């Protein structure tokens, strides 16, 4: 036991002392923040477009005013959303998201050179000059919109400085469509006040389910468990794979540096294997603790209500304990297998023969887990969750949707029985591999396990 702990300690310290470990540890939350924050930053950093509206003929009278009104209404609607987000306590991120959504444009008067010139080459020349990036800033426009009515229907030609810019086009289309609809309805005898009321109407739709916590109406509290399950499945998958890969690399390093044989003369194969598995498990728990710490701090500050609900969901029905059990079983199965493979290899290339198919199999739960979010009882999800190598990930994803207790118990038993079998197989293979110079293949691995 003392030797096992010594090996575990060395394994832990060897990684925890490196800068790379802490960098990669913080990389995930950092990228998560960046992943959410960067689009907001990009959107908020976008310049406000200067757009001029030109009514091409008397028939187009009123179209510019429609577009202008639509822009003002949109800005007013966004201001309301920001206020709403602040009232709901959605935090800075929610307010920022609301504030940057919508069109970023400023409407200005069109220069005379464009309005005076008749349609044709002269006007196009004036347009090119105004939209040119080299034009002086105070005279440069980002877009010019020519509005017209043909047979009573609004039309527009949008000239933009960049071919890829379709924001103005989209906004003008919506504004004209709305204006035309209002006019058509009014012309048909519908009162303008009624049109406005119909537009502002938001039907109240409520979801009900006998499974809901309240016994009837479905709330956010009822939907959170599925997301937690999916999140836990993915987190478990990434932690198990990360831990097992660390172990694979660690054993390979010891094999290539010829340390394994010295270790074997000082401790038994099972002590070494257990020590290493334990050391990396502690390392993985450190990662989990740091991620959980950062995640919960961010969540509590951004949305305390959601944080409280998640905490409640995790504790209700012992969900957190299922997750722990699946993590232990999953880690054990894969960690010992990867360690045993590592004992035969000196370079990652040596390990490819076995690692390739194993990694391909490991993609399956990733694909199926997403299905578990919407259909946790789908036959494919149920069947695959009985396969011990998939159980930890798929049952984690299914656990919050209350699968039958018998399934939970039997899959747990199957998983732990397989884990014990894997420990036995890996122990034999580890000892044989550590002292062997043979090239790794399924055949040599099998021979090491069977002792032939």
């Amino acid at each position, binding site marked *: 036991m003392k030797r096992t702990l010594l090996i575990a300690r*060395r394994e832990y310290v*060897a990684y925890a002392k490196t800068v790379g470990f802490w960098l990669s540890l913080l990389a995930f939350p950092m990228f998560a923040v960046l992943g959410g924050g960067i689009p907001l930053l990009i959107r908020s950093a976008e310049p406000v477009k200067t757009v001029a509206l030109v009514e091409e003929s008397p028939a187009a009278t009123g179209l510019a005013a429609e577009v202008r009104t639509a822009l003002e209404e949109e800005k007013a609607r966004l201001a309301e959303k920001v206020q709403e987000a602040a009232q709901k306590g959605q935090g800075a991120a929610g307010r920022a998201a609301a504030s940057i959504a919508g069109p970023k444009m400023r409407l200005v008067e069109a220069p005379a050179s464009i309005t005076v010139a008749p349609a044709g080459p002269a006007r196009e020349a004036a347009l090119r000059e105004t939209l040119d990036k080299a034009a002086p800033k105070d005279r440069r426009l980002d877009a010019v919109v020519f509005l017209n009515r043909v047979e009573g229907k609004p039309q527009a030609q949008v000239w933009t400085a960049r071919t890829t810019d379709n924001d103005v086009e989209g906004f003008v289309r919506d504004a004209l469509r709305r204006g035309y609809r209002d006019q058509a309805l009014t012309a048909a005898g519908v009162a303008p006040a009624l049109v406005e009321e119909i537009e502002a109407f938001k039907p109240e739709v409520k979801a009900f389910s006998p499974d809901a916590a309240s016994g009837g109406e479905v709330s956010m509290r009822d939907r959170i468990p599925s997301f937690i399950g999916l999140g836990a499945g993915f987190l478990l998958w990434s932690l198990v794979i990360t831990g097992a890969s660390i172990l694979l690399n660690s054993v390979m390093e010891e094999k290539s540096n*010829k*340390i394994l*044989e*010295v270790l074997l*003369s000082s401790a*038994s194969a099972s002590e070494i294997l257990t020590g290493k598995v334990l050391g990396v498990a502690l390392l993985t728990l450190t990662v989990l603790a740091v991620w959980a710490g950062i995640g919960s701090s961010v969540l509590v500050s951004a949305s305390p209500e959601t944080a409280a609900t998640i905490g409640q969901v995790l504790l209700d029905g012992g969900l957190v304990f299922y997750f722990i059990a699946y993590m232990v079983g999953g880690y054990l199965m894969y960690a010992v297998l990867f360690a045993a493979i590592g004992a035969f290899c000196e370079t990652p290339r040596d390990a490819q023969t076995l690692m390739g198919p194993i990694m391909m199999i490991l993609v399956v739960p990733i694909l199926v887990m997403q299905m578990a979010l919407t259909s946790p009882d789908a036959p494919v999800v149920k069947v695959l969750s009985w396969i011990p190598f998939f159980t930890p990930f798929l049952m984690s994803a299914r656990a919050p949707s209350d699968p039958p207790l018998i399934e939970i118990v039997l899959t747990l038993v199957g998983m732990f029985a397989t884990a014990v079998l894997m420990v036995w197989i890996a122990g034999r293979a580890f000892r044989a591999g550590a*002292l062997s110079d043979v090239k790794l293949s399924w055949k040599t691995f099998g021979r090491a396990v069977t002792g032939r």
Partner: protein
Amino acid sequence: MTAALTLEGVSKRYGGFDAVRDLSFEVPKGSICGFLGPNGAGKTSTLRMILGLQPATSGRIDILGAPNGRLVRDRLGFLPEERGLYKKMTPVEAIAFFGALKGVPMGEGKRRAKQLLEQQGLGAAQKKKMKELSKGMAQKVQLIAAVVHRPEFVILDEPFSGLDPMNQQGLEEMIRGLAAEGATVLFSTHVMQHAERLCDKVVLLARGRKAFEGSVDEAKATSPRFLDLDGAITPEAATALPGVAGVETLSDQDGVRRLKIALAAGAGGQETLKAAFLNGLDVRGFALKEPTLHDAFINLTGDNPDQALNRSEAGQ
């Protein structure tokens, strides 16, 4: 003298290949024993069986009173043929870690590590990372790591390989030091000179079988003495001389040869030399040579210890 190690009829088979066959020998307590043979003779397999890293296919092993090296692990020190330590550890950390695995408290291990490193002239390297040390320095550190727990029995697999003459000499002194402190040392090598200088006893292994067990002098006594002759002498003419058991041409430059003449048992060499002069052979130089352990090995096994045997050791 009591035996620290006894092997009786030990064999090791990998699939269809016999790596070690019916091997029996003893290593007396407190002695330095050389386990000699060319690469591929079965030395590493034997040492691994003694340590309990691999089971013997048949036979009996008794080490420090136990049937398996694993049962007396903390009383054994082992330096494997292919060596390595954790590259990012300092020598003190590495030695203390391996000492701790053998039951030496970490603090005490560090204290001993510093002391032993100082003794070996590695005081300045204490705080360097292992990867920054030269190969010779790293090997010394590894040997210290193997003996920091003061083992009763030290097993060294090809300890001299890869070392320059200076470091080889240093290692020889370390091995003598271990024996002087009462430890039993068993080391394998294919370089006979080291065994000749160090060993109280040698065990010669050829193709998995024991070819000889005894003292260095006893081994050498099994080999004939040699007479080297230089001159325009044909091997046939030399073979015809009295007391000659065999002739080997060491060099030949336009008919001027150096011949190594193996003398027959009991032949002193004077008669052979006298006959060479009387027969009018063109003797331009001569030297009478006592056999070396290397000669004894070739004589006993027919193998050259410097040449690796082409034995397929699948599974090893």
